[in-house]
Structure formats: C-alpha cells, structure tokens
C-alpha cells in the first residue's frame, strides 16, 4: 500500500477510536508523552493497562461467584479498574466502571452482574480495535524507515 494511503488509514482508525467514544482526551495526553527518547511509551502503557485490568477482572469474577456478594470488595476492585481506565483514557470502559460502582452502592447484585458483562464486552472491543490500530501504526512506521534516504 502506498505510504500516504497507509498514513491516512492510520489517522482515520485513530480518529474512529475517539469518535466511537472508546478513548478520550487522556489518551491524547499519553500520546504526547511519547517521543524519540521513549518511542514505545503508549504501547507500554497499553500493556500495563491490560496487565492491571486482567488481574482485576479475575478478582471481580471470583467475587461475583461468592454468596452473599461482598459489595465493599467489589467496589474496591472496580475503583482500581476505573482508576486505571481513567489514566489510560478508556472512556467507555470507565463509564461501565462507574455504573458498576453505583450498583454496588445500591446493593444491586443483578445490576452488578449485568454491568460487568457489558464492561467485559466494551473491554474486549477496546482491546481488539486498539490492537488493529497499533498494528497499522507499526506498519506505517516500518514504511517510514524503509523510505528514508541512505
């Protein structure tokens, strides 16, 4: 694919992530922290985010199987999940976290479970679309290296 086409596609895919509400301004802040001295910063943060959140998802899953539900613990885990998502710029996921916490505070177990399912869906979508975007961006970077003179 011609390089300018590739770049346009990368830019378009990136914009879609924002237009679809998956990412917010915080993600832009993270992108701005990336430079030549730290060229993989964003992807490092993404990896860290996945590490953090996959652990939390496991904890929450286990908690949701207990009876009775311990809303305090669930809220604690979700607080961390929300925090990481906020720092990462994961807008939709963050919103599901907030909703989940509201259900916790209301002691609404069904609401918690429903919201957790939705959260998992949003999370999976985010991962999928981010990975596609990063792959394309990597391709574009490779063509940049290839097209440099000398």
């Amino acid at each position, binding site marked *: 694919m011609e390089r300018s086409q590739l770049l346009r596609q990368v830019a378009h895919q990136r914009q879609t992530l924002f237009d679809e509400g998956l990412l917010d301004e915080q993600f832009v802040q993270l992108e701005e922290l990336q430079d030549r001295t730290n060229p993989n*910063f964003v992807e490092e943060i993404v990896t860290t*985010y996945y*590490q953090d959140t996959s652990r939390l998802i496991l904890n929450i899953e286990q908690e949701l199987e207990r009876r009775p539900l311990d809303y305090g613990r669930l809220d604690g885990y979700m607080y961390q999940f929300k*925090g*990481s998502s906020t*720092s990462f710029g994961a807008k939709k996921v963050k919103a599901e976290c907030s909703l989940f916490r509201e259900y916790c505070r209301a002691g609404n177990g069904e609401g918690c479970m429903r919201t957790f399912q939705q959260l998992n869906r949003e999370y999976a979508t985010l991962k999928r679309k981010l990975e596609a975007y990063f792959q394309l961006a990597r391709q574009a970077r490779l063509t940049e290296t290839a097209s440099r003179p000398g």
Partner: protein
Amino acid sequence: MAMAGEIFRRSFPETIDQVRDDSSSSSELHVLAVDDSLVDRKVIERLLKISSCKVTAVESGTRALQYLGLDGERASVGFNGLKVNLIMTDYSMPGMTGYELLKKIKESSVLREIPVVVMSSENILTRIDRCLEEGAEDFLLKPVKLDDVKRLKDFIMKGDGKDGGETRIHKRKRQDDYASLSSPSPFPACDPSSPLMRSSSPSVRSSKRAKLRNKD
C-alpha cells in the same frame, strides 16, 4: 522482607544509580512518587522524566517510608545521598492512605520539610482541605497532566527547601514551628486571585496563604 534497595534495583535500576550519583549537588529534582496503580506509576514517572526530574516510584506508603528511612526498623541508607525534593502520593491506597503517609512525613523532624503533593481521582473538597491542613503543598486531580508537573517543578525550584516551611505555616498545628520562624520580613500584599504556584518568588508564598485563607 527483601532489602528496600534490592526491590528498587530490580524494578528501577537507573533511578537508583542516578540517585546514588550524589543527587544532593545535582540541579535535578528527585521526586518520590507513591501510587498503588501500576498504570499511574508509569504515567507519573514519564511526566516527571519529561520534566527532567529524577523519579523513584513506589507502590505503597509503607515502601515510601522505608525508602525515606523512616520505617524505624532499619537505619536510613545514607539519607542525604538519597535526598528527595518532592513527594507525590496518591490519596486512596490500600493499607496506608496518602493522607496517613502525609501525616507521618509531616510529623517527622527529619522529613517534614519535604513538600508533599497529594493526587486523587476524586474531587472531594473535605479531602482536599484535610490534606492542605495537614501540610500538603498541593492537591492534584487525576489524571495528572504535564502542566501540573511543570508548575510543581517551577514552584519547588524557585522556593528552596529551607524557606518551604513558611508557605505551610498558616495551617501548621505544631507550636515549635512558630518559634523557629526567624524571618521578620513581612509578605508582600496578598493577591487572592493569583492561582497557586503560578507566579514566582515572594508572591508564590503570599498567593498560597491567600488561597488557604479563601478555603477556610
């Protein structure tokens, strides 16, 4: 329990080495960042490095106190060689909260001069007031931005540590601090509208007092 130094060396080899290269004579700020979130630690670390600060990032208040040599269990590891110019701590952490850490630092005769900034994802006025009352230099809402860090750095670099006590005197509970204040020079006229830490030199202190007064 592993020696604190080993833990940090495993995770942050270059920061420890930089610190041991006599940071006390370096013009770079050394910041201790405390946050239980791995994502947040990475972000704050990057923000600080971009702002040309040395960073040591730890995951809990307990670790922070160990690093500062205040855990009471072991002798401080050449404290002056590991001089910390600023502590940035998350508020909500399991175990010791950022507020509790702040208190412990301000209660220590060795550490109380180190400016402490509290960070939180929740904008709760009583929380903010509590922290400022206890001697926090500032309270930042997460996610922390590069501008926040730059502003902080300017503030710390401009007022040196020795004068730092004056900015917090307004809210200090300890009587002996008042006794130790020797400078008789009056502050310039307060400007309540000037934002905290934006202006430089003497007006920084007066705007800080004004802001604290406005919060009462």
